[in-house]
C-alpha cells in the first residue's frame, strides 16, 4: 500500500489520499494522471491491468486500488 | 390534482391560447388574388397561368401596350396544374376573359401535380380570398409538413396587416409580374462559364396526373369560351442544349394542342430568338428564368406574335432546325 501511495503522491501531491474517496468521480485525477498511474502500478507490481478493470469504483480510493491490485495478482 | 389531469389541463390551456391568438391573427391577414388586389377584377381581357418561368417572363404592362388590352399574370413559382386550375376556376367565375395563356415547360410536365414546395403552397393559399377555399387548399393540396409553414406565413401576414406593412406590393403593382432578379442583372463571364460546365439536364417522362391536370385547365377555359394559347417561354441557348428530348416534347405538345384545337407556340423555336435574347443579358443568374430585360423583350415578342397573320411561319419546325442557327455549339 505504501508503494501505491508513493506512486499517487508523485502524480498529484496535493490530494489527501487517506480521506479522498472520489478520485475519479470527483475529477481529482485527469485522464493523463490515470494513464500514468496505471502504467506505474503495472511496472511497480508487475501486473497487467486490462480494460476490464477500468471502472471508476476500482480507482476512486487508495483502498479500492489496493484491492484491485491484490485481486489481479491472485488471478495471475 | 393528479399529474396527468394537470398535464392535460395545462396543455389544453396552452393550445387554447395558441388557437385564439392564431384565429385572431389569421382574421387580420388579408388574402386576395392579384387580380382583385390590382383592381383589375371584372376588367381583364387576358390572363396568364404558369409557374416561375411565366411569373418572370410575362410583363402585363408591355402586353397591354402592344395588344391594347388589360392583362394579368396569375403565374406563381412552383405552381402545379392543380394550383393553376384552382386559381383560374375562381378568377374566371369572377372575370371571364377573352384569352387565357397557359405557360408550359418540359420540366413542368415531368413534375408532380401536387405542389410540395412550402413557398408555392403559401403563394397559392394567399391568392384565395375565401376562408373555406384556403382551408380546402390546406387540407387537400398542401403536404402535411408544409402546414406549419403556411400557418407561420399566415400569422406573419396578420401581424403585418396590423402594423400596416402590406406584403406583395411588387406583385400587385406589376399585376403579377415578378422580376427574377431584384434589379437588371448581367451574367458575368465567370458565372456563364460555370453554368456551361454544369451537367446535362434531362427530365423524365410526363406524368399522367400532370397531363390530366392540364386537360382540366383547357376544358375549364374553353367552357368560358376563352381563346386558349399554350406557350413555352424560351430558356437560354446554353441551357436548352443541355436538355434531352426537346423535339419529343415539341411533338407531344403539338399533338396535345391539336387534339384539343387550341393554339401552341414554343418560343424556344421563334426565328427572332437569337436576335432578341442573349444568354448574358436576357437570363441573368438563372438560365431558365428571364431577367427584366429579357422579360420585356419576350412580352413584346409574344404580343406581336399571337395576333400576327403569319405566326406559324415565325417558328422553326424543329429543334434540329434551330440548332443549325444556334451560336452555342455544345461540346
Amino acid at each position, binding site marked *: 500500500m505504501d508503494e501505491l501511495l508513493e506512486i499517487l503522491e508523485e502524480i498529484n501531491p496535493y490530494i489527501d489520499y487517506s480521506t479522498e474517496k472520489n478520485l475519479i468521480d470527483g475529477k481529482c485525477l485527469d485522464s*493523463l494522471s490515470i494513464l*500514468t498511474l496505471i502504467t506505474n502500478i503495472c511496472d511497480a507490481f508487475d501486473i497487467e491491468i*486490462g*480494460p476490464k478493470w*477500468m471502472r471508476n469504483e476500482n480507482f476512486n480510493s487508495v483502498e479500492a486500488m489496493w484491492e484491485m491490485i491484490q485481486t489481479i495478482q491472485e488471478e495471475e | 390534482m393528479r399529474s396527468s389531469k394537470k*398535464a392535460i389541463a395545462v396543455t389544453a390551456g396552452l393550445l387554447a391560447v*395558441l388557437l385564439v391568438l392564431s384565429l385572431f391573427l389569421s382574421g387580420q391577414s388579408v388574402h386576395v388574388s392579384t387580380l382583385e388586389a390590382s383592381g383589375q377584377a371584372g376588367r381583364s381581357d387576358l390572363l396568364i397561368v404558369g409557374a416561375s418561368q411565366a411569373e418572370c417572363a410575362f410583363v402585363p404592362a408591355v402586353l397591354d401596350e402592344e395588344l391594347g388590352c388589360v392583362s394579368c399574370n396569375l403565374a406563381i413559382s412552383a405552381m402545379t396544374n392543380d394550383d393553376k386550375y384552382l386559381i383560374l376556376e375562381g378568377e374566371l367565375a369572377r372575370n371571364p376573359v377573352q384569352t387565357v395563356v397557359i405557360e408550359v415547360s418540359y420540366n413542368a410536365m415531368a413534375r408532380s401535380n401536387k405542389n410540395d414546395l412550402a413557398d408555392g403552397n403559401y403563394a397559392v393559399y394567399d391568392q384565395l380570398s375565401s376562408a373555406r377555399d384556403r382551408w380546402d387548399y390546406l387540407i387537400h393540396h398542401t403536404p402535411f409538413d408544409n402546414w406549419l*409553414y403556411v400557418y*407561420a406565413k399566415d*400569422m406573419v401576414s396578420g401581424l403585418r396587416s396590423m402594423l400596416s406593412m402590406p406584403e406583395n406590393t411588387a406583385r400587385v403593382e406589376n399585376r403579377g409580374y415578378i422580376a427574377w432578379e431584384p434589379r437588371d442583372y448581367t451574367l458575368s463571364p465567370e458565372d456563364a462559364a460555370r453554368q456551361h460546365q454544369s451537367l446535362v439536364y434531362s427530365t423524365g417522362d410526363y406524368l399522367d396526373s400532370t397531363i390530366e391536370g392540364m386537360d382540366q385547365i383547357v376544358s375549364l377555359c374553353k367552357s368560358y369560351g376563352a381563346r386558349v394559347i399554350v406557350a413555352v417561354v424560351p430558356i437560354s441557348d446554353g441551357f436548352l442544349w443541355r436538355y434531352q428530348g426537346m423535339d419529343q416534347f415539341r411533338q407531344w405538345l403539338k399533338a396535345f394542342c391539336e387534339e384539343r384545337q387550341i393554339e401552341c407556340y414554343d418560343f424556344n423555336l421563334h426565328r427572332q430568338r437569337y436576335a432578341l435574347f442573349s444568354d448574358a443579358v436576357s437570363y441573368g443568374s438563372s438560365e431558365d428564368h428571364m431577367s427584366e430585360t429579357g422579360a420585356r423583350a419576350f412580352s413584346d415578342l409574344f404580343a406581336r406574335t399571337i395576333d400576327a397573320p403569319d405566326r406559324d411561319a415565325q417558328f422553326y419546325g424543329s429543334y434540329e432546325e434551330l440548332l443549325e442557327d444556334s451560336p452555342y455549339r455544345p461540346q
Partner: protein
Amino acid sequence: MSITSLTFFLFAAVTLVVYYCLPKKWQWYVLLAASLVFYCAGGAKSVIYVLITATVIYFATLGMQRISDAQREYLKQNKAVLSREEKSAYKARQKKKRKAMMLAALLVNLAILCTFKYFHFALAQINHLIRAVGAREIQDTVNLIVPLGISFYTFQSIGYLLDVYWEFYKPERNYGKVLLFVSFFPQITQGPISNFEQLSAELFTEHTFTYRNYAWGFQRMLWGFAKKMIVANILSVYVGRIFEGFQDHSGITALFGMFCYSVQIYADFSGYMDIMCGYCEMLGIRLTENFDRPYFSKSVAEYWRRWHISLGTWFKKYVYYPIGMSGWSRRLAKQCGKKLGKYFADTIPATIALVVVWFATGLWHGASWSYILWGGVNGFFIILTLWLEPVYSKVKTALRIRESSRLWAAFQTIRTFLLVTFIKVLPEVGTLSDGLRLWKHVFVNHELRFDFRWIVAFPGSEMGVSYLFFLLAAAGTAAMFVASLLQRKKPVRAYFNELPAAVRIPLVCGLLFVVLTLGTLATFKSGNGGFLYAQF
C-alpha cells in the same frame, strides 16, 4: 422524418400518449415500435443495417457469455484436478475464443460503417495514386445511401460489445431490448452515444407519469427548438453566404462569420440534444448529457470534455485507455524515459493514444482530408499542452500569474474560444484548401474602404437574412449566453419554475408562438433545417 416537422410533433405526441396509456410493462415495446417506425420513415430499406448490427452483437455477446459461463463451471468442477498451468492454458484458450467472437462482430460492424462512410473517399485516394502512375482511374459508379445515424449506433453497439467482452456486465438475453438499445430513436440520429448499463436502466424500468417530468421536459424541448429553429437556422443562411464568397468580404467579416458559425453549430447540436433530452424526460428517461457550456472552457482539452461529451467518453474508454495501457505502449515509454526523462516518458502512452484518438475522431466526423486535418489540429494542441505543461508552469510562476485569477480565467476562455473557432471552420468551407484560404483571408485581407458595410456584412437580401431575423438570432444568442451563466449554479428551468405562473405562462406561450412562426420560416428558409450532425 425531420425533428422540426409537423410529422415529428405528431409522432412524438402519439408515442408519449400510447407510452403512458398502455400498461407499464409494455412501455419499452412502445419505444421499440416507435424507434422502428421513426427509422423506417427515413428510408425503410436502411433498417436492415440496424437489424444486422443488433443481431450480430446480440449473438456475439451471448456467445462470449456462454464461453465465460462454461469456463467458470469447468474450473469449478475441476478445481482440485487441474494444475495451475493447466488452468492457465484452459483460460487462455477460452479467452482466444471470446476474442475471436468479439473481433468477428467488431469487424462486421466496422466493415458496414467504413463501406458506407469511406468507400468513395478511399476510392478517390486510390485514383490519385493510379493517376500518379499514369494508369486509368477506377470509375466510381456505386451509389451508397448512408443509413441514418450509422456512426452513432455503430459506436454505441461496439461499446456494448466491448463492455461484455471485458466482462463489465452480463449481456442482455432479450433480443428486443438489444434492438431497442441500438435503435432508440431520440439518440439514433445525433447521439448521445450511451453506455448499455446506464441506458438500459432507464429504458427498461417502468415509468410513472409525473407532471414535473412532463413540464420540465416540455420546457427543455421548447428551448431546444428555439435554439435550432431560430438561432441555428437563421445564422446558417448568413454564415453560408459569407463562407461561399469570403474572398468578396473583408477579413473582419470573415472572422465575424466564423464566430457566427461557432454559435450556429452549438445552437444546432445542443438544440437537438435539448429537444431529445427534453422529450426523454417527458418519458421519464434520462439521457447522457452531451454539452457542458463548452465555450467557457479554458483549454482545448477541456473543451473536448465539454463538447460532444459522449463521443469523447467513448473514445477515452475504448481507444485512449486500451492503447495507453497496452504493454507495447508502456515498453516504448520506458525506452523513451531513458533518453527524454520521466515526465516525457509518462506522456508517451498518452501521446500515442491521443494521436490515434484524434485521427479517428477526424475520420469519424467526415471522410475527407479536411476532417482528418481538423482532427489532427485538435490533437496537436492537446498534445502540445501536455508536453509544454512544465514550461507553462514555470512561465506562470515567473510572471506571477495566479490560476484562480479572474483575468487569467478570462484570457484562457477567450483564447480557447478563438482556437476552437478557427479549428472548427476548417472542414466547413469546402475543400481543405478553401479552409486554409479562409484562415489566411482573416489575417491578410484588410483592404481599407470607406464603407462600413465592407467591414461587416450587414444583413439584407445579399446576405439572405433580413434585419429582423438577424436581430432575432442575436437575441437568441444573448439568451443562450445568459442561460450558460445561470447554469453554473443550477438548471435554468429551476430558476424559470420559481417564477410566478403569471410570468411563466405568457413566456412559454410567447416562445412557443415565436418558434412556430418565425422559427418555422427560418427553418424553411435555411432549406428545411436539416441538423448539421445528422449527416453522421
